[in-house]
């Protein structure tokens, strides 16, 4: 495939960043917005073309004779050569997941660009301050995210991983006047940075033992039955394999080197994907503008961790221990986030916890994926859920954005009963809720069902656990839905105009995403994305019993939510009174933030930084100053000898003379 298109996919957003970033101040707001949308629109078209070429052209570059999909390096430029073998390249790797991610990212990004045209101005049409900057950052983010998914080697991924983090930082802190936004952006960056430290160390360990950064070489070989599917020479594959066979021997704290490397890399993923215990930044990140939350903190960046594990999946298969850690981190996070989501008041927080929970679903799905279980269904399910989740979660966030824009508050207590005022928002939001709850035929049903099937194939415990979480998901989403749109009639205050639906720039993305959420479930995803490239017909393996159970759970949960929240009634209060401890803990997110505050402020800041600074100023510097002081004191002490008092000199002279004379006399005697 010609490299022009892929290069343009990366170059257009980057160029747009520079244009808007450098010249944005000189432009009118509208021009900047249109430019941004145009740029992203072009990228969208290019990305779609690329993805379609990959999936449907049937070119031998992409598909082998047996119909297996291949990895294709479109281009791979040396960027920085550490050694002969360890080279960072900037390239474009096209394979099923990267092609899928191209579609997801550009779609959501374009929707958000469009939506922001409406969102980033108030009811009187006055543009938000720093609008151009906003679009510049959006373009930067899109560039980084696209670079991340098409990375050909783990270091390119790390580079864009960092860039994504930085653009997320800039966007969360977009309202930089607000101290809460500033601290949220700082928190997000530092937490993910901490996770990236693990990622980096993982990369170092991995590259030390394998001598390569390239995904094609890292992932091609280790598992039997995979070599030859992806286009990598057998010799490289063999070398990587032998390296791990031999060096899996060094054991550190009970884990092999590979396990450690993979767990550390997964730590990077935990940070970006907000998995327990590194999830604390994501709820706070909602301080950013809502379109940003939709793009970065729901659909694209936060799934980077999932994508990372998927990218290195063959390596993870070598170390089942690592995969189990992945599974349980995911499972615990999913349950935790779902419980917390049931008690939050801020609608964006609810969505944020729901995002954490859903990402954990994907992670669990990857964790339970094994080649022997439904031919690696979990992998495909995870990617499928990533895809559908991106769509419906972006939809929900954009819907929430529309509500916030209309009401001017994040609190559902300020909303209630909005269904009449904002019909489009209402219906699209409902579709989003149905999709996430997993109601047939909306997209979430299919992806979640596949995840549950693969869980069941691996371990019953995980299956039951995740089903319960799925039920909770349906419950809290409908709780949110009812509290926003039903509960009681909305009171319009005097002097305020009634909330209403938005301009077309905001509604259009909602409608499109809702439509996608309705139909995406029917995409034969197994034909496109599987762990080894071989097509997998999901419908042929469809497990109706699992589907029925999950459907029942979801419906029951929705029913419960309906009973509790459709009309104003005392039931929620009773529930709350029934288990006050659980409610309080969940409401305070199980005090994770406080714990972190304690660790960072009390222990690290006051316990390490301050003593070190003190030590430096007083001990080290004190020692240096002490040298000076001692010198000074010594010279002060001997200064009287040079007092200029001749009589003193004579004294000394006399003493010396007497001593000399005495000695001479003694000698002579």
């Amino acid at each position: 495939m010609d490299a022009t298109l892929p290069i343009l996919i990366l170059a257009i957003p980057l160029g747009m960043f520079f244009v808007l970033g450098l010249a944005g101040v000189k432009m009118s707001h509208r021009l900047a917005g249109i430019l941004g949308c145009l740029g992203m629109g072009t990228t969208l078209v290019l990305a779609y073309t690329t993805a379609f070429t990959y999936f449907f052209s049937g070119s031998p570059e992409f598909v082998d004779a047996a119909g297996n999909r291949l990895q294709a390096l479109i281009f791979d430029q040396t960027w920085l050569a550490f050694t002969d073998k360890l080279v960072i390249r900037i390239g474009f790797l096209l394979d099923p997941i990267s092609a899928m991610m191209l579609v997801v990212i550009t779609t959501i990004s374009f929707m958000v660009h469009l939506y922001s045209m409406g969102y980033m101005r108030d009811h009187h049409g006055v543009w938000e301050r720093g609008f151009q900057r906003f679009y510049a950052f959006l373009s930067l983010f899109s560039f980084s995210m696209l670079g991340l998914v098409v990375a050909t080697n783990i270091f390119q991924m790390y580079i864009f991983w960092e860039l994504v983090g930085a653009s997320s930082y800039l966007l969360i802190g977009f309202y930089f006047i607000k101290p809460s936004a500033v601290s949220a952006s700082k928190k997000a960056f530092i937490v993910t940075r901490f996770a990236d430290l693990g990622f980096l160390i993982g990369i170092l360990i991995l590259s030390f033992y394998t001598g390569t950064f390239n995904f094609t070489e890292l992932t091609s070989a280790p598992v039997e039955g995979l070599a030859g599917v992806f286009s990598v020479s057998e010799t490289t594959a063999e070398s990587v394999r032998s390296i791990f066979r031999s060096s899996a021997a060094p054991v550190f704290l009970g884990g092999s080197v590979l396990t450690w490397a993979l767990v550390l890399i997964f730590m990077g993923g935990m940070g970006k994907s907000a998995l327990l215990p590194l999830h604390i930044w994501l709820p706070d990140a909602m301080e950013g503008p809502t379109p940003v939350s939709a793009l970065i903190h729901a659909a694209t960046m936060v799934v980077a961790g999932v994508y990372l594990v998927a990218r290195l999946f063959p390596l993870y298969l070598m170390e089942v221990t690592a995969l189990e850690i992945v599974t349980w981190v995911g499972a615990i996070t999913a349950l935790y986030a779902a419980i917390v989501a049931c008690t939050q008041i801020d609608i964006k927080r609810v969505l944020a916890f729901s995002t954490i929970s859903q990402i954990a679903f994907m992670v669990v799905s990857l964790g339970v994926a094994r080649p022997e279980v439904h031919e690696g269904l979990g992998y495909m399910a995870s990617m499928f859920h990533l895809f559908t989740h991106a769509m419906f979660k972006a939809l929900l966030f954009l819907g929430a954005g529309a509500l916030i824009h209309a009401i001017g508050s994040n609190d559902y207590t300020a909303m209630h009963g909005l269904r009449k005022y904002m019909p489009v928002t209402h219906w699209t939001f409902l579709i989003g809720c149905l999709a996430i709850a997993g109601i047939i035929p909306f997209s979430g049903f299919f992806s979640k069902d596949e995840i549950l099937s693969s869980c069941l194939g691996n371990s019953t415990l995980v299956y039951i656990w995740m089903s319960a979480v799925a039920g909770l998901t349906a419950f809290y989403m409908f709780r949110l839905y009812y509290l926003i749109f039903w509960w009681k009639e909305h009171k319009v205050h005097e002097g305020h105009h009634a909330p209403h639906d938005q301009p077309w720039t905001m509604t259009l993305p909602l409608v499109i995403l809702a439509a996608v959420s309705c139909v995406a479930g029917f995409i034969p995803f197994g034909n496109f994305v599987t762990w080894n490239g071989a097509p997998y017909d999901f419908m042929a393996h469809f497990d109706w019993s699992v589907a029925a159970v999950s459907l029942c759970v979801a419906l029951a949960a929705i029913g419960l939510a309906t009973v509790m929240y459709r009309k104003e009634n005392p039931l929620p209060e009773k529930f709350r009174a029934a288990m006050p401890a659980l409610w309080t803990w969940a409401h305070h997110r199980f005090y994770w933030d406080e714990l972190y505050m304690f660790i960072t402020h009390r222990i690290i800041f006051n316990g390490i930084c301050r003593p070190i600074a003190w030590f430096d100023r007083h001990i080290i510097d004190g020692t240096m100053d002490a040298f000076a002081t001692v010198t000074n004191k010594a010279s002060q002490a001997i200064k009287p000898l040079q007092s200029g008092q001749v009589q003193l000199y004579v004294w000394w002279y006399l003493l010396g003379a007497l001593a000399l004379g005495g000695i001479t006399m003694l000698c002579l005697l």
Partner: protein
Amino acid sequence: MLLIPAMIMFCCGVYGFITRRNMIAILISLELMLNAVDINFAVFNRYLWPDAMEGMFFTLFAIAIAAAETALAIAIIINLYRSARNIDVRDLNKLKY
């Protein structure tokens, strides 16, 4: 024989030099010491090498230099007195550091 009074004179000079605070008194003590030494030179010359004249000349020059030195010292003292109204060595330490 003549060395004994010279020696005592010298010791008086030392005593005066150490104990006195007045600059002129110090100078006087200094003159005492100088004189004692001069006498020694002359005596040694006369008693040990009566044919030579080095000792005498040494004394001669020493007297000349002593005169110069005293004149200068007194000029300085008067000058100091003018600016400080005082010629006590303990108080004149402004130039010290």
